[in-house]
Each structure stands twice: as C-alpha cells, then as structure tokens.
C-alpha cells in the first residue's frame, strides 16, 4: 500500500514536472485553451467560488487499470488547482472497483463495464438513490501494419476484411478484398502476418468485441480478453506486440492508438466510407451509440455501436466509466467528488489525458460534456 502510494506520488511528481515544462514551452497553446474555454470557464469559476477554499479533504477511488495513466494526469491537474485536496485512485481492476464502490470503501470508481442490474440496485441503495455513470475515458484502438512503402497512407479495410485477416482466412496483402477497397494504392504481393497480445488484456477484449459485432459472419469467436485464435504470432503487452510488428514486413496488429508511432494505421470501413483513426472520430462513436437500456439522465451508459454505419465514427474504442453517487453523507466527499469529476470532464482535463505521454485518449465531445456536467450537478450532501 505504502509502496503503491509512493509510486503514484512519484508518477504524479513526474507528471506535474512534465506539465510545468509543457506549460513553460507551450505558452501559446495554454493561452488558447484558456480563451477557448471562456464560456464554460466562467461557469466553472462560479462553481469554484461557491465552494471556494472548501475544496479540501480526502476522497478515494479505485477500479479499472485501463484508466490508470489518464487518472494520474487528472489527479495531478486537479490537486495542482486545489492544493488542499487529496484524491487517490487505486487501479485494482474494474470488478474490484465496482465492488468497493458499492460497499462504500471508495467514493468513486472507474470501470470498463457498466453496473449490471443487481450491482446498480446495490449501488443505488449505497448512494441513497441516484448513481452517476459517465463515460469519461475513451481510448481508441488502432489497427497498425508494417509495410514500409505504405506506412504513410491509411490502407482501407472493411470489418469483414479485418476479421478475415485476423482469423487467418485472408493471407496476402494483394487479396482481391483488399485491392478492391484500395483502388489508389499498389498493394505488394506480401504475406499477411497477424499479431496479437499474448496476455489477457482489455485491448484484446474490445477488439474482439468489435470483430464479433461488426463482422459476425467471418469472426465466429466469442469476445474475450485472451486471443482466441491459436498458432499466431504474438507479444506480451503493447511493447511486445509492437516489437513483433516492427520485426517483419507484412505484419498487422491492434494497439492503443497512442502507440502507433511510425507504423501505418488502417482506415476502418464504416458504412460506405473508410474512417482513419482520430480522437474526434473515436469520441463520435460514443455520441452516436444508443443509450443502454437502464440509462437515465445520470446513468450515461451506452451500448457501444461497434457496427455503426454513422459517417465519421471510428468504432474500435475502449470506453471506461467513472462511477459516483448522487448523494454523499459528508459535504467534503460530495464537493470533492463533484469538483474532481467536473475537472475530469472539462476540456482541460480531457485534453490533459489526451496528451500522448499521459494516456493518449480521445477527448469526449462537447455534447457529452454537457450531459455529464448536468449529471454531476446533481451531486449533493445529505
């Protein structure tokens, strides 16, 4: 525990140092940010004045390890602005996070999955009525390939083609299915080597969910955190996968979009068009996804539309929720959780996590921010 805190503190220190450096180097951009957020900034400021110096005390959170890097950035940013406040986040995993949130061990939680019916009922009891679930962490997953001549262009691949490649049915880059989707590119006669994660990971789970939803005829495996196809090239962790991709030409893999580097990335087929990865396109798919069955004004859960036909939406993303209560026993917890999550949802917070050296996530859209802020305003003590 002590060790973990120490490490986190070290991380925070490093990030704040980084933030300082960035602020020093990029005075232009930070100035832009402050002017841009003029409108929302004023409302935040009034909110800040309301609570004023009261934003101090301690709250604890735990949950999804996928959010860990982003949360470290948010905690650093929030505590810089509120030196009296101490917010902690223990990346125990989504399941443990939900459990600790429900039994009151922590005041907020991060979870890659929404609360299910039973959990929601228990959480509502714990929170005295309202539960808040907000999709505040959107991490795009890029499909990367290594064909040195084509790494600068985005090869177009439809969902069925991607599924066919990873299932081992499409084995050459000049396969008719790929050539047809890329009339302007000369594709090499090169064997395709699909590469996957060898360890259990959220990236694999979201990618296989996408394949199962968008190409159900080709991809017949169940979504799972462990890659279901045997006899494949693979690597441990993101770095391991990237090592394999860079080791041979013709390789293709899926990784966190922040780690694409010099490799080429696929423009994924959505409806009739092909969408290359971008933060806006990733945030877009969250906006166009239908609300989950039990969603309310405060429970902003979605059924991620992996098979969306919406123009400009990038469907391969990992979405992680932040969970909080509508009512807290103490004023301190209520104002701190509200303040912290408002910061997380703010343009500043989202942009901070989007930096490649923090988490490389995709900032949520303004529309989503409005809905989240409306939900967060309901937080009160009582």
């Amino acid at each position, binding site marked *: 525990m002590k060790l973990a805190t120490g490490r986190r503190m070290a991380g925070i220190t490093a990030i704040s140092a980084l933030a300082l450096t960035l602020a020093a180097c990029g005075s232009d951009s930070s100035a832009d940010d402050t002017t841009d957020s003029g409108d929302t900034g004023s409302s935040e400021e009034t909110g800040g004045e309301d609570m004023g110096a009261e934003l101090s005390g301690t709250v604890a959170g735990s949950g999804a390890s996928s959010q860990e890097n982003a949360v470290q950035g948010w905690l650093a940013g929030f505590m810089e602005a509120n030196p009296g406040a101490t917010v902690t986040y223990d990346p125990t995993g989504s399941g443990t996070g939900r459990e600790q949130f429900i039994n009151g061990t922590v005041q907020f939680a991060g979870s890659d999955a929404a609360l299910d019916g039973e959990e929601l009922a228990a959480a509502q009891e714990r929170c005295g009525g309202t539960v808040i679930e907000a999709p505040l962490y959107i991490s795009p997953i890029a499909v990367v390939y290594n064909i040195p001549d084509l790494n600068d262009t985005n090869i177009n691949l439809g969902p069925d083609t991607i599924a066919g490649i990873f299932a081992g049915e499409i084995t050459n880059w000049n396969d008719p299915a790929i050539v047809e989707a890329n009339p302007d590119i000369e594709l090499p006669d090169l064997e395709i*080597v699909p590469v996957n994660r*060898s*360890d259990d990971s959220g990236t694999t789970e979201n990618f296989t969910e996408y394949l199962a939803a968008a190409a159900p005829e080709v991809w017949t495996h169940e979504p799972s955190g462990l890659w279901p196809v*045997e*006899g494949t*090239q693979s*690597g441990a962790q993101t770095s*391991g996968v990237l090592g394999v991709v860079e080791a041979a030409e013709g390789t293709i893999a899926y990784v966190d979009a922040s780690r694409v580097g010099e490799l080429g990335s696929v423009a994924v087929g959505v409806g009739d068009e092909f969408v290359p990865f971008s933060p806006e396109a990733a945030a877009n798919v969250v906006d166009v996804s239908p609300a989950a069955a039990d969603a309310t004004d405060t429970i902003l859960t979605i059924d991620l539309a992996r098979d969306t036909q919406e123009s400009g939406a990038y469907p391969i993303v990992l979405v992680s929720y932040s969970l909080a209560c509508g009512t807290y026993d103490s004023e301190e917890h209520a104002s701190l959780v509200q303040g912290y999550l408002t910061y997380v949802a703010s343009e500043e917070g989202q942009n901070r996590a989007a930096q490649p050296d923090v988490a490389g996530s995709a900032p949520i859209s303004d529309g989503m921010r409005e809905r989240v802020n409306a939900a967060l305003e309901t937080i009160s003590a009582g």
Partner: protein
Amino acid sequence: MATTTPPQDQSRRGTGERAPGRLGNVIFKGISTTSGVMILVTLAAVAIFLLYRAWPALVANAEEFADVSFIEGNLWEWVAPLLFGTVLAAVIALVVAMPLSIGIALFISHYAPRRLAQLLGYIIDLLAAIPSVIFGLWGFQWLRPLVEPLFAWLSSNLGFIPLFADYTSPARNITTGGLVLAIMIVPIITATIREVFLQTPRLHEEASLALGSTRWEMIRQAVLPFGRSGIISAAMLGLGRALGETMAILIVLSPGYAINFFLLQAGQHNTIAANIALHFPESSGIAVDALIASGLILFAVTFGVNMLARWIINRRAEFSGAN
C-alpha cells in the same frame, strides 16, 4: 598448523589458554552448520509453499477452471503442452550447446596456449553473468534476424520434413528460443567440462602419445573417456538452467499451447516459466493457484533431472576419477 593441535587442545580444555582458537572453531562450526541446514530449510520452504498454494488447483476439477481465461479443461490438460514445450526448448538448447561446450572446453584445456586459455576461461565465465533479460532482447533484436534466412531456406528446401514445415517470419519459434537458451547455458557447461578435462591423469595422456597417437587420438583415448561422467553432469546442470529460464523465452517466443514438433512455426509452444510470467499480472484466485501448480510441476521435473544426473554420475564414478 591447526591440524597438529587437537590433542593438546583437549588436554588443556578449561585452562582458557587456547580460548581464541577454540572460539573460532565454535563460531565457524556454527556458521557452516547453519548454512548447511539453511539450504535444506529453504528447499523445504519452497516445496511446502508451492504445494500449499498449488493444492486448490491440484484438486480442482475442470468446472472450477471455467472462469480462468487461459485454461481449457483440467489442470493436466493445460500443463501437458507447457511441460512439453519446456522440455523441447531445453533439449534443443542442449543439442546445440553440448558440442559447442565440449569444443570450447577441449580448446581451453588441450589446444590453446596457456595465456589465451586463461583469457578465454574468463570470457566464458563473464557470459554466465549476463542477465537473462539481456539475452532475451539480444536474441530477439540480433539473433532472430540472423537466423531468419537460414530458417526460410530450411523450410523451403526441407519443408517436406514435418520438423521444418511452414516457417513464417518473424522467427519467434521454439528453435530461436532454444538457440538463445543454448547460448545461455554454454558457460556453465563449458566451465564444468573444462575442469574435468584438466583433471585427466597426465600419465594416461602421455601413455597414449607414447603409443604414437596424434593429439586428437589421445583426446579420444584418454580425455573423453575420463571426462564422460563430467560431461553428463555438466549437461544436466545446463538442462536444469534451461528448464527454468523465463525472461529470454518470454521475449523471444510467440507462445502457443500445442504438442507437436513443428520447430519453425510460431505460436505452437510455450514454457512453464514464461507462461507464469505472462499470465501472473492479470490473474487472481484459482488462476494464481494453477500457475503456482505449474511451477510446482516444473520444480519436480528439475529436481528429477538433477537426481538423474547424480545417479548417472554415481553409476559411472568407478570407471573414471572425475568426482
């Protein structure tokens, strides 16, 4: 010096005259006995820990593993391919490392000039000090690109032999893994064999030479027969290290869970130790127990290999002087 004094020691017991020496004896005896016992205690503690933590997995049935993503079926169905991969990698390593080590040891003990031999000996020992993660990175970044053309040639020309069928680049297969392991176990094998060769009785060698043998014939007649048990025990030591190697395999190999001899195909094999390192971070509950159970099985196999080595050495001890 001290060897002549014990009788006097005993006769003067209680006078206190020899107290400093006696105290030294007592302390040293205490330290060495404690160290000796410590080895047994540590071994027992490891065995008990493994058994205790592995027990829930050892007695669990297939249904209890349903939630564990990396296990299909029961524990033994899961461990069998891993055990096979572990042994296969170690055997490949041994096949490559043995001729190499015997050659190096012979060169150092019988061919090289004395100075060069000493220098070579140091360098070989230095190799043993390189951490395995470095060997892994080196194997993946440097050795792998080097062997890829060879593998491609083997597969295209001798691909009709199942062993070499269907190679795909990058060469993250069991053969590359075995080669990296081979480099890692060469130092310990070489050092052991070299010591044995150096002990060959001078008279044997001279007798052979006197009968008109060339140097190679002398080595065949005198050195190799004398060193046979030493060579076997060195091989077993190397095998023991190769069986437990983790990081290098984790970095070099694309893991798989099959039992076959497709040496050039990726994603077919994995070793127990590398598999533990791969899955431990995201595991909890029965999954951890299962991983520890696989560790226990590896422990038992390594133990068995060492016992076998002892047995072979003892059985042959009377025919040579290497012990």
